[in-house]
């Protein structure tokens, strides 16, 4: 973080944060370099770190740390080493009580900035000029990567190797196959993250520039109008829900809609459908839709427990039930795409006409470029965060299952309580003792570690991290921090003021309107089912995968995110008031509390 003249006081020092009772030893879950270490205290204590609750709202399980390392390796590689964004290198992270704090590395030497600007202009310019072609290639690369992941076999360890190993050519024994498959799985993940960030900075940057330009020329323009002018009509991310709407209509047309009764589980519904011919053909139609459209995640997929709709169909089924009941009561459930298209073009035309000639030319150029980059901004989430990542976690689960079958773990899910190095180590011992026939220590070694870590994580989950630690910067100047996290100077000062408490939370006005209602604090995706009709969703951040609950709630409030965040986009799509980036909503608000959300002013009042 670019900080000018540190100002002490508002936020705690990272070195003076207590370990919650019963969580002693939490550090062992994380790599040595992820901790606030005494050996670099002088530097780290004088930096500004903010809690990345947008991506890491929950304490990190040991394995999931790979979803910190890889993204920050990838984003830094592109930002710092490929595009050489002039004033900002990559992002450092540290872990405190299981929560992830981040801080950008600024470039301050003017000569260095000028040197980097030359790289940036040439390289970013090339991407912008060839965007559609490069993005086409990117999609092909991602689809190939997802296929490769699907084809990766996690071998079993047989009592005797099959004849082919003895008599065939080029066959490997299972010990080698296991030791080969595991790092390959990890490398595929790294590859995904590399792809993930190839276009991200530039895409957000182009869109962010358009937003800034509009606000400069039209200072009072609602954020929603800017998003409406840019947002895609046929965005891939809307396809899954569009398919559900189609299936809902089909269920009614073929008379099987009675099966979709409120409160039934997916398996109960499937069982009833399987009893009739019409039901069976509906299920067959559903199967066709599942690949790829059920590769949505139930949350932003940076934790292993965000499963896909394939693994946990309760979200799409809840959505089906909602669509069917809406259709049966005569409501329109289709996105009015013609209308959205017309309104998008009308807004762009009218706003453009209000500007003078020079400004209009820039406006139109930026709008066109924003529309060009926007498919990537929306779609990379589907390809990377949802489709790839949910399948990748399942691949890791297969290694967990291998360890479970051999007694190293009590449950395949427990694999996520070990770091990726510990998993490698466990697999090493497993294939060693499989080969030697000796007595493995693993079954005695790992289960107690897993049990202890689950206990620590559950206790850390009750701890509320401060929104920031270290020194308060006078100004936030890092373009990435502002663009991707919405952490601006104003926001940080607001957090600092709020450290002393108060009954009004301030954030970004992300979707207009004011409502009062009962808060539902959702800290992780498995609590989504608790949300009741008409409640106000209070969460760290949301993703479009949560879309089905947006038809239930009255408003949404998040800890982190800017007006471009997905919570904001979805809220506007659903016409719900939203305040994003409050810094501490999930800490300050309790489920059941009555709150007022003013999405036009960006305030949340605890009543």
């Amino acid at each position: 973080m670019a900080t000018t003249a540190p100002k002490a006081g508002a936020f705690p020092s990272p070195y003076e944060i207590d370990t919650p009772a019963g969580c002693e030893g939490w550090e062992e879950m994380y790599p040595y370099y992820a901790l606030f270490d005494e050996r670099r205290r002088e530097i780290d204590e004088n930096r500004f770190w903010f809690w990345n609750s947008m991506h890491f709202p929950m304490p990190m399980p040991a394995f999931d740390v790979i979803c910190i390392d890889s993204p920050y390796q990838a984003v830094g590689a592109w930002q710092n080493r490929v595009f050489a964004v002039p004033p900002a290198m990559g992002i450092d992270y540290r872990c405190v009580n299981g929560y992830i704090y981040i801080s950008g590395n600024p470039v301050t030497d003017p000569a260095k900035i000028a040197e980097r600007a030359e790289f940036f202009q040439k390289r970013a310019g090339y991407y912008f000029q060839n965007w559609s072609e490069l993005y086409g290639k990117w999609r092909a690369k991602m689809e190939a990567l997802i296929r490769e992941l699907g084809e990766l076999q996690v071998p079993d360890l047989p009592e005797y190797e099959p004849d082919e190993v003895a008599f065939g050519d080029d066959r490997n024994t299972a010990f080698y196959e296991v030791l080969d498959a595991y790092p390959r799985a990890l490398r595929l993940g790294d590859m995904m993250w590399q792809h993930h960030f190839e276009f991200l900075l530039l895409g957000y940057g182009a869109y962010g520039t358009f937003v800034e330009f509009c606000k400069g020329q039209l200072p009072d323009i609602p954020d929603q109008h800017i998003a409406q002018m840019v947002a895609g009509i046929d965005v891939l991310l809307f396809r899954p829900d569009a398919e559900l709407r189609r299936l809902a209509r089909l269920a009614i047309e073929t008379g099987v809609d009675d099966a979709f009764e409120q409160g039934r589980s997916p398996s109960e519904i499937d069982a009833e459908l399987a009893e009739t011919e019409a039901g069976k053909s509906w299920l067959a139609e559903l199967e066709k839709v599942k690949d790829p459209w059920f590769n949505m995640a139930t949350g932003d997929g940076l934790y292993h427990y965000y499963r896909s709709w394939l693994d946990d169909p309760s979200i799409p089924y809840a959505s089906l039930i909602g669509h069917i009941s809406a259709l049966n009561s005569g409501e329109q459930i289709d996105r009015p795409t013609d209308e959205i298209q017309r309104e998008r073009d009308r807004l762009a035309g009218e706003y453009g006409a209000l500007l003078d000639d020079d400004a209009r030319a820039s406006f139109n150029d930026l709008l066109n470029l924003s529309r060009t980059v926007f498919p990537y901004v929306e779609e990379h989430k589907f390809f990377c965060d949802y489709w790839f990542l949910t399948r990748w976690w399942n691949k890791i689960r297969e290694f967990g299952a291998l360890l479970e079958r051999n007694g190293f773990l009590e449950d395949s899910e427990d694999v996520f309580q070990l770091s990726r190095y510990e998993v490698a180590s466990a697999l090493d011992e497993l294939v060693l003792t499989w080969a030697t026939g000796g007595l493995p220590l693993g079954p005695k070694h790992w289960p107690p570690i897993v049990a202890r870590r689950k206990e620590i994580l559950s206790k850390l989950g009750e701890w509320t991290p401060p929104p920031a630690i270290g020194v308060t910067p006078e100004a936030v100047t890092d373009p990435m921090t502002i663009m991707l996290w919405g952490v601006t100077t104003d926001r940080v000062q607001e957090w600092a003021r709020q450290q002393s408490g108060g009954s009004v939370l301030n954030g970004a006005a992300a979707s207009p309107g004011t409502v009062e209602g009962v808060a539902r604090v959702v800290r992780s995706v498995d609590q989504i089912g608790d949300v009741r009709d008409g409640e106000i969703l209070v969460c760290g951040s949301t993703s479009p995968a949560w879309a089905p609950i947006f038809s239930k709630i009255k408003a949404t409030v998040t800890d982190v995110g800017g007006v471009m965040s997905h919570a904001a986009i979805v809220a506007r799509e659903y016409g719900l008031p939203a305040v994003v980036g409050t810094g501490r909503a999930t800490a300050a608000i309790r489920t059941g509390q009555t709150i007022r959300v003013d999405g036009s002013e960006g305030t949340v009042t605890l009543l």
Partner: protein
Amino acid sequence: MTDYIRPLQQLSRTDEPSFGGKSANLGELLAAEIPVPPGFAISADAFHAFVHAAGLEDRIASAMAGVSSSDVDAIGRASHAISEAMRFAPVPAALREQIAEHYAKLGENSPAVAVRSSAVGEDSQDATFAGQQETYLWVRGAEHVCDAVRDCWVSLYSSPAISYRARLGEAEQPPAMGVTVQLMVDAEASGVMFTCNPVTGDPSMVAINSSWGLGLAVVGGEVTPDDFLVSKVTGEVVREHIHPKGVQYIPDPAGNGAVRVAVDGDRREARSLEPADLERLVGVARRIERYFGCHQDIEWALPRGETEHVFVVQARPVTAVAKKPEKKPASAMSLIMSTFGAGPPKG
């Protein structure tokens, strides 16, 4: 005798030197089919004829001789002497007849009119400073109209008006000013709107201030008005602040003039404009802006007891708008480069 009066609908921009900016603008608004209450304009020549007929030229000249902008006492003395003399001078009979004739055309039973000064000349944009902003509301009967017209003329020699002209070095030249006489709307609510946000300069917004009763309360700053910001593009109310509105002007029950009364009960806190009113106001604002081709400052009134019409009683170019930072035209790519800190500094 000279024709000193013309109906508003016969005026256009080019009549500004004879009839003043306010009257000429109202003529333009009528040509643009904006709902403007009917009325007539009295030319600047009428004022000169009045001074001449009353034989006041010499008195004015001697009172004003040697007045300098720095001599406050001298200005006060000149103002007093001239005002007193003018107040007791008769309006020439021929002009009285013309006023009565045009007034009679506005309606039966002594209709209520507003009598306002209509500044002439280069500085008409700065009419506020020139002290040429006299307004007499709810004037009824031809005699009272004549009196109000004379009062407008007298205001040309108020201390601030003399002082202003003295600063411009024009103290000894005879000033020029028209008068506008316009049928009055008994307003349920009235106020001012700008075809842009005057605070931020945003051209996509209509900024509306509104309060109860006749327009004086908002223009005179006697209440904190309800404050609305409405998008021209979608008609959405982007921001609104409803303030308690303690006083309003209403027609004097005695029949002539407007009186200031307290707003009672719930109405103090109630919103003075409903969404449908805002929609109509924005529609009118956009038409006026389009017609004149620049941002306008518009006084409007909603007639009591009906919901269809919005009357515009004045429109003039916006002069004081927050300046947007002067940005050199930049290509989209160079703007994006600045976002990443790879271009010239922003702003």
